[in-house]
């Protein structure tokens, strides 16, 4: 009985080993960050949006830099609450290659309220206008704020839905994407 059980266990382990080799990812079935999608482990979907100053910003042009994409609106209380932390972290880390793209979900906001909002919180990072909900669609925006931490290679390291984000959260994630 005992030896039969041992043989049974040995067969299970042998089958397990065979399965590991049979199911090895030889054809790159894992994403490896090659497919664009708004999820951790995927390539950040590319977009081109206009800034408040009329300049165009294309996400893929920032490859090589760590990027935080933050979707927000002026009427959203948690967006307001996390803006000072975002600004503080931006000031500390921009010299090390951090870029923050604050995408205003203009399709559901009042564009005229933005300058007063930026002045109130003293925001100096680029603010992009998502007038046609292009970024909202690409990033499957379901809730504001939504934040995407993007590594230098363009892959998403982490997604934080909702807020406000604590300053320590921002710092730990920025350190991660700056590596």
């Amino acid at each position, binding site marked *: 009985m*005992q030896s039969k059980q041992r043989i049974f266990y040995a067969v299970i382990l042998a089958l397990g080993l065979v399965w*590991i080799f049979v199911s090895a990812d030889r054809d790159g079935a894992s994403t490896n960050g090659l497919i664009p999608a708004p999820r951790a482990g995927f390539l950040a979907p590319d977009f081109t949006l206009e800034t408040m100053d009329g300049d165009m910003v294309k996400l893929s042009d920032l490859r090589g830099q760590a990027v935080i994409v933050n979707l927000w609106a002026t009427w959203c209380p948690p967006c307001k609450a996390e803006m000072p932390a975002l600004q503080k972290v931006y000031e500390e880390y921009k010299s090390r290659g951090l870029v923050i793209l604050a995408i205003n979900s203009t399709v559901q906001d009042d564009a005229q309220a933005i300058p007063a909002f930026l002045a109130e919180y003293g925001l100096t990072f680029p603010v992009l206008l998502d007038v046609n909900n292009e970024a909202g669609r690409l990033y499957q925006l379901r809730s504001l704020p939504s934040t995407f931490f993007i590594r230098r290679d363009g892959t998403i390291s982490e997604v934080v839905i909702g807020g406000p984000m604590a*300053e320590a959260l921002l710092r*730990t994630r920025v350190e991660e994407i700056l590596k």
Partner: protein
Amino acid sequence: MIEVIQSWFAPPRHTILLVLALWFGWWLAEKIVKREQKINEAAFSNLTFYGLLAFVLGGRILYALDNLAAFMSSPASIFSPNPQLFDPFLGGAAAVVTMLVYGQRNKLPFWPTLDALTPLFAALMVGLGAAHLAEGSAFGKETSLPWGIDVNGLTRHPSQIYEIVLAFFVLNLIGTRGPLPRAGAQFLTFLAWTSAARLFLEAFRGDSVLVFGSLRLAQILSWVVLAFALFALNRLQSTQSVAN
């Protein structure tokens, strides 16, 4: 159905599924302890409570210590409701240490207590699968099979559904069968089934961490855990045979 779950429990609400699983698992474990009368009910209940408390507090405090520079700049972040400021592995370690200390002080027998906690672990595995589904994480690799689901424009294996189904199977196995003759057998059986399930299902995942070029790390780790569980089960059987 999947869309409904993903809408109702979209992040950060997906953690509700884990809390529900935890509540159910705890209820089931206490019910079985009451029925089998192998260990003290009140001591078991306290053990679980202190373990959970240590998990929550330990996960946050140890995370803060691990990222001390970030928290020194903004100490108030320690009280932040952000669930991302949490290390589940360090929290788990804190829970294990707390439960070991409490168990020893209250003379709770090790293996029967671990067996009693097993329904809680099994329910949590179901909750974890459900949370993965709601969050859209732990997604599958591309497939042309008719039951594939759309993930960001690509048809993929519903790996989270596979995960839930197998976790339910293990929970059913653990939660419905009568007491096993050998202390530790319940937990080791759960460990063996769960690691075997992960070893099998990882092959259908599209987010595997690869090592040695193309091997999936989770499969290798699962195989090691499975080997340990089977070895320990075999030892239990041998000890029982000698005793008889």
